[in-house]
């Protein structure tokens, strides 16, 4: 008993680390020995993992793609086409946490050749030497939204092909609010009137949570001149040495957060678990959220509208972060040639972009595809217009130092625990210290 329990203690103490860190050191040999003999076959359906474990790379196919469950069917369809065209085998595997699982698997030489992910992973992936540059011809990249292409670049190098852009906007309940408010003051006045009349329980539903949410808080800062998270360097990229969360513009945004917190428009008690429910149960006439909330609102039978974020008094319109979904090629890809071919030749196709649009209903990154869907789908147009002023979310690794401290600072300001100036100053110091450590 003695030894065993002591051992158990030891194991629990190190399990989290050991699980991800253990493993061989050098990659296994490529698996193309069956090159001439294997028939071009496709797997038909994406492989589903059991539980939340990372998928195990299939060593016997010519191209391995990891994506999340939602997108897998669409990716599979074109992977099959690619397989048939080139006489190779392709496997699409579902990963539950692509970012971490890709990093961990690549470290031990068992990673996929291609992954589907968000553009803000890029800095971290480059830092860890896990993604390879993807060189698109200039006439091809000109077919994409310029901001989407910008998001796939890091230090001037391009690392993937985008397929969708996403951003937050203002969702409003048309039954309660016929026309969307243009300013935050208007929004608050409309909402408070509805609350007073008993038609709603609160003004706005926005993900804040006890630890804060930097992604949703950022637009309040960006509405003011000079407000935001990072300044830019000479090349126009985000500069990790210029933290501006405590700039005068940012502090003005912080004061708006404090004011809205005082008025109970924003509350740290609203988080990812109840944000949609508040809007969908008609408790809140307004919600600041993204395309992912639409399906639930539809299901709840809400007569919703989508509008750009309102503008703030003394500043301009709130500018959300743009997130770009893209295909990456692993720098340790066993099948680099096929991976590059698939990503550079298939993803820029209109039909591929349209198929991927159907999955998440986010505006496609390819202009042609966007034009086609926006003509028929007013939601897509509305989301796109809500993000027109937005800037791509920083993809530099230093952004990892921002989420926690900046999020918490905004939560504290909203909760009234600290003043905007003092709290943002402290957050800036913490962010700078974290970046220096990293």
């Amino acid at each position, binding site marked *: *008993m003695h030894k065993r*329990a002591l*051992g*158990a*203690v*030891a194991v*629990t*103490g*190190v399990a*989290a*680390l*050991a699980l991800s*860190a253990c493993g*061989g*050191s*050098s990659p*296994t040999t490529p698996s193309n020995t069956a*090159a001439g003999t294997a028939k071009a076959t496709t797997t038909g359906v994406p492989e589903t993992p059991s539980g939340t474990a990372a998928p195990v790379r299939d060593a016997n196919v010519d*191209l391995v793609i990891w994506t999340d469950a939602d997108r897998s069917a669409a990716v599979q369809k074109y992977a099959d086409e690619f397989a048939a065209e080139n006489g*190779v085998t392709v496997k699409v595997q579902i990963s539950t946490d692509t970012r*971490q699982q890709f990093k961990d698997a690549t*470290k031990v030489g068992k990673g996929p050749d291609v992954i589907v992910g968000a553009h803000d992973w890029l*800095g971290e992936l*480059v*830092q*860890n030497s896990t993604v*390879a540059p*993807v*060189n698109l*011809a*200039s006439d091809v990249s000109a077919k994409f939204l310029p901001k989407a292409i910008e998001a796939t670049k*890091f230090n001037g*190098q391009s690392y993937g092909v985008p397929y969708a852009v996403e951003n937050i906007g203002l969702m409003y309940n048309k039954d309660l609010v016929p026309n969307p408010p243009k300013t935050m003051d208007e929004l608050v006045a409309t909402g408070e009137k509805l609350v007073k009349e008993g038609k709603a329980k609160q003004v706005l539903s926005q993900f804040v949570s*006890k*630890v804060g949410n930097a992604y949703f808080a950022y637009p309040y800062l960006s509405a003011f001149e000079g407000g935001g998270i990072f300044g830019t360097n000479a090349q126009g990229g985000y500069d990790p040495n210029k933290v501006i969360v405590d700039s005068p513009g940012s502090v003005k945004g912080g004061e708006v957060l404090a004011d809205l917190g005082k008025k109970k428009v924003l*509350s740290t*008690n*609203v988080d990812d678990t109840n944000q949609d429910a508040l809007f969908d149960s008609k408790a809140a006439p307004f919600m600041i959220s993204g395309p992912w909330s639409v399906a639930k609102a539809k299901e709840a039978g809400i007569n919703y509208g989508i509008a750009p974020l309102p503008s703030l008094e003394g500043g301009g319109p709130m500018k959300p972060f743009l997130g770009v979904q893209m295909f990456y090629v692993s*720098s340790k890809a*066993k*099948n*680099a*040639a*096929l991976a590059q*071919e698939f*990503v550079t*030749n298939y993803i820029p196709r209109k039909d591929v972009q349209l198929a991927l649009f159907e999955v998440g209903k986010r505006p496609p990154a390819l202009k042609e595809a966007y034009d086609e869907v926006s003509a028929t789908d007013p939601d897509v147009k509305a989301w796109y217009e809500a993000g027109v002023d937005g800037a791509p979310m920083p993809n530099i*690794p230093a952004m*990892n130092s*921002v989420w*926690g*401290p900046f999020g*918490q*600072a905004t939560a504290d300001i909203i909760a009234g625990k600290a003043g905007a100036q003092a*709290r943002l100053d*402290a957050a800036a110091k*913490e*962010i700078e210290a*974290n970046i220096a450590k*990293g």
Partner: protein
Amino acid sequence: MTKPLALAIKWVLIAAAVAGAFVIATKLAEAGNTLAVVLAGVVGLGILAIYATRRAVPLKYLAPGVLLMILFQLWPVVYTANLSFTNYGDGHLYSKEESVSDIIAQSVREVPGTPRYKMSVAVKERASVETADLILLLTNPEGATFTGDPSGLKPLAPEGVTKAPSGKILSAPGYTLLTARQVNARSADLSALAVPTSDGGGIKPVGLSEAFEGKPTMSYDAASDRITDSSTTPPTVYAPADARWTNVADPSQTLPQGWKEGVGLANYTRIFTDPTLREGFVSIFVWNLFFAIFSVLSTFLLGMLIALLFNDPRLRGKGIYRSLLILPYALPIFVTALVWKGMFNQDYGIINQLTGLNVDWLGTSLGAKTAILITNLWLGFPYMFIVCTGALQSIPQDVREAATIDGANAFRTLRSIIMPLLLVAVGPLLLASFAFNFNNFGLIYLLTKGGPFNGADTSIGSSDLLITYAYRLAFSGSAPNYGFAAAVSVIIFILVALMSIPGFRRTKALEEIN
């Protein structure tokens, strides 16, 4: 069982174990890990020596346990301790050489104004597609055809060349074109291939059918150990400092790719000297200890009381009550913890609504700690209830009768007879429960994520346990640093081990009652 059958089974098992060791050894050999291959071989031979001979009888019993202990308990500890002396973490995953080659490879940029070629990959006719030197068959936008190899770009006579509508060459006399799969099999050769051009760049393939002219902007000089970025004017020089390539002129600029290196005791020094960490560590440790002790005691007391109640022979329908009480234990914590989180919500949670309170449960230090303890009591008491019910049923009835005859009242019987007997059975489980709760990662992570965070420090939460703190450092913090988190884990290990030793001594004393 007859002797020959037993013998046959024994040898089959031995053969299976040795074969298993052999399979593992080949896998390790494939991965190029020599030391591990030797170890696997030693284990295989050891199994043979212990079980195939008549000698070493005690080892026959001990070997499997010892082997598994080394594999699953000692090895992770050694590995973690080893890791704690490095800077292994994001941006520091690979060797310095790898960082150099990666930086140069990633710095290849398309030379502006150069044509984009359609490409096919070929070898000389009758040469082996697996090993022969690769030749690129290129078509420029005007339709002119070229061959490219490391010696340079040469025109390819259009006679006999067939092209696809895109311009890609489909066949050319004197060359064997590779299929997609054949090209892919040679991905490594292909990415190493660059057809030199007059302006110092190289024509490099993209995928299977395109090529562009690119030029690396970074270069490495091994003699001075400097990387130079020629894309800026004047060129930027990077020198190695602190496991990163650092701009000589402006040390705040570093290249993203660093490398892994030994840092000695730096991680441990940081734990004990960084003032925020030190204070945080102390406060987390105190709360962690309190959390584990309080959780064990509260769940044990509640579980035991209910078990005593339901052990009364006069109570009917015990089966139903018992099943219902086990429910919290049977539901997955992922569900229950999130439900509790919702119930503790200040504005929308049922707890504040029912009690008429307006407590900010998850937003204040005290509130979060209370919420965690309440949730853990609810989650943990069924286990203690099961354990105590089992132990109570094994206490013989005659002992209690003897106590009653001797004139002891119910409380006295409980204190002097039942409790000591119960603790003999349950004591070690209480210790195990302590160790479990000391590292109860799931509950904290699901309920509060370690928060709320006070003041301007989001690395140390007020409801953090050491394990959630180490996790944040290693995986979800601002700069994931496995080396540092390993150092924290080693310290947690030492602390828990030190605290457990007296506990197990005490258990031994309890066992002597029997």
